[in-house]
């Protein structure tokens, strides 16, 4: 049994953190929220770095890596509230397998967003090529994007009016579901990063902040709240690794693992962000503090790729059918 990251993954995480932290940060997310800038590092830089296209085969100009590799990077992206989401790249790599557009994606010539439904679409802002399901087929085409007022601007949500589409894969139901499941895995990995980072903020503050003559983290009322988040975050880490491993090695386990990771990420990030706002007291719900940027991420992500209720329901349906 070796259910742990190896040295290569730790090195990959460090490299991703170095690259992402040069431009992405909660401060950058706040600036985007104020309308000053786009998301950081942004699509072009993310593609140029090679991190976004890790799961694209080498022959198409990608990294030829595993879903677990991408999940390791996505955790770092989540910590820094980086955008656009690696979810969109992960799904595009699945859906465009064998299509010439995949090389275009890796070369930075094509900007892809995935249209699940009629609602606002993740990373639609700045995208020029849209993939969507239609009557069991996978279609692709241009579209017109209307950006929506963001809760979390790093998610680039906008309404998409599809233009003329072409059918890429006629019978794409299974392919579409795999793309969703890989996407859920990467979404959960980003949620893991965000949750573990916001927990760190809470723990650091609980050590520094004194009230009634001692650090507030010494009070069990505060300590136990943070511990409950820690326990959830570590369970989420285990589920993210399992889902990523399943995506790479055990397709039969992926439906349950991806649904579990998605559900746990939604619940855990929300719990973490709300706890850490509370631990900070007054400063915790100011615009200038970073806590609300993670809180915003949690309030949006729980509704991406199906909401938490749908994911828990799917877990239960799979469990009773086993």
């Amino acid at each position, binding site marked *: 049994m*070796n259910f742990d990251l190896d040295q290569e993954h730790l090195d990959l995480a460090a490299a991703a953190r170095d690259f992402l932290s040069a431009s992405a940060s909660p401060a950058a997310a706040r600036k985007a929220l104020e309308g000053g800038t786009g998301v950081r590092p942004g699509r072009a830089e993310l593609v140029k770095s090679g991190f976004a296209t890790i799961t694209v085969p080498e022959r198409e100009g990608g990294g030829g890596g595993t879903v677990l590799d991408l999940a390791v990077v996505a955790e770092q992206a989540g910590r820094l509230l980086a955008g656009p989401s690696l979810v969109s790249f992960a799904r595009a790599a699945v859906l465009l397998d064998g299509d010439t557009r995949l090389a275009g994606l890796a070369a930075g010539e094509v900007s892809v967003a995935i249209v699940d439904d009629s609602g606002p679409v993740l990373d639609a802002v700045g995208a020029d090529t849209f993939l969507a399901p239609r009557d069991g087929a996978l279609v692709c085409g241009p579209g017109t994007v209307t950006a929506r007022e963001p809760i979390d601007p790093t998610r680039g949500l906008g309404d998409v009016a599809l233009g003329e589409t072409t059918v890429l894969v006629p019978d794409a139901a299974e392919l579409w579901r795999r793309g969703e499941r890989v996407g859920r895995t990467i979404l959960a990995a980003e949620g893991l990063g965000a949750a573990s980072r916001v927990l760190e903020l809470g723990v650091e503050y609980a050590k520094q902040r004194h009230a009634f003559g001692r650090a507030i983290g010494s009070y*069990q009322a505060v300590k136990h709240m943070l511990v409950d988040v820690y326990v959830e975050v570590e369970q*989420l880490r285990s589920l993210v690794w399992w889902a990523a491993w399943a995506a790479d090695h055990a397709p039969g386990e992926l439906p349950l693992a991806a649904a*579990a990771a998605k559900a746990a990420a939604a619940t855990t990030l929300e719990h973490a962000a709300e706890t850490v706002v509370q631990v900070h007291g007054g400063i915790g719900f100011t615009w200038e503090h970073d806590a609300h940027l993670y809180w915003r991420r949690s309030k949006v992500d729980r509704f991406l790729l199906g909401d938490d209720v749908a994911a828990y329901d799917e*877990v*239960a349906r799979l*469990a009773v059918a086993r």
Partner: protein
Amino acid sequence: MDFDDTAAEAAWRAEVRAFLEQHREELGARRDGKAAAQARQATLYDAGFVGVTWPVEAGGRGGTPMQQAIIDQETARLGLPALVNLIGIGMCGPTVIAHGSDDQKGRYLKRLLRADDVWCQLFSEPAAGSDLAGLRTRAVRDGDDWRVDGQKVWTTSAQLADYGILLTRTDPDVPKHRGLTMFVVDMHAPGVTVRPLRQMSGGADFNEVFFDDVVIPDTERLGAAGDGWRVALTTLMSERLSLGGGGTGIGPGIEAVARHVAEHLDALPPDRQVLARQDLGRAYVAALGSRYTGYRQLSKLSRGEFPGPEASAGKLAGTRTARDLADLAVRVLGDDARVATTRDGDGFWQELQAGLPGMAIAGGTDQVLRNIIGERVLGLPAEPRADKGVTFRESIAATERTGA
């Protein structure tokens, strides 16, 4: 990353599995009584599957914690009952190994592994539970002996035990952690009285134990006089090592709950089905989170590392999940959930439900576990202690003044 056994682990698993399956009937027989339970453990010991991590000279095999984890997994897979001397193997024996004399080791250890003698751990008291170092059972030196008076409580298996490790106060005039001494006590000695306590579930697994002028020879001391806290920490660390599996061994298995829910789901009204699936989904995700976090700990064992204080999270999470699963399992019984057995005469889930609140207390309360994780994993400061820097006698006097 993989979930596979190494070649050596796979070979060991095959050996364990072959033996357990061959002796399944004998080992799985749920006959009551001490003798039957002792016979089951002796069969396993004689085959080499008890105490594998113990040193060879202590009667063990000098094996790895991973080998023990594989035995635990295979035992759970077949649903075999737990060993009668689980506490002896997990806690008492390791304490004797670390702090006992050669004479004690020779007399006790192998017999403990074979369950020729059953052991218990005499730590908690009516006035000292989570605050174990506040215990009051007195041991007073009397020539070559010690005389013990006091009371222990929540002592699992004391009704079966032949020996126990007993933590006593030998010096009340130093701070509380420094005045303790550990002994091996003969549970059949004059003055030892065991009274079973009935739990809220109706079962009686634990006891009150009274000591009335019980004589213990000084040769039965474990570690130096006054060094009992350090000796007790050995016991408690061993307890952590003996609890693997990330808390997934607590309560019902998730697959069993899912099968049970599947059987009852269609009988529920549609809106109740939706709610039942939400409950199942949440508990199932939590249980999977515990299971795969347990695999991370097993991976550490497999590499030869030991679990740290983060392992406490397994029990904390496992207890919560077990309660949620049991609650759901009872709820889907419908009207029958109001009574202790269903119309078919099945009381399994109701009985399970009554056993789980105790799990959040036994072996470290949820609140103590949160303190351990908060302080030793997250690095948060400890609560100030009102009894710090004063002798035990002074702290007792202060408690009595405030009427607490």
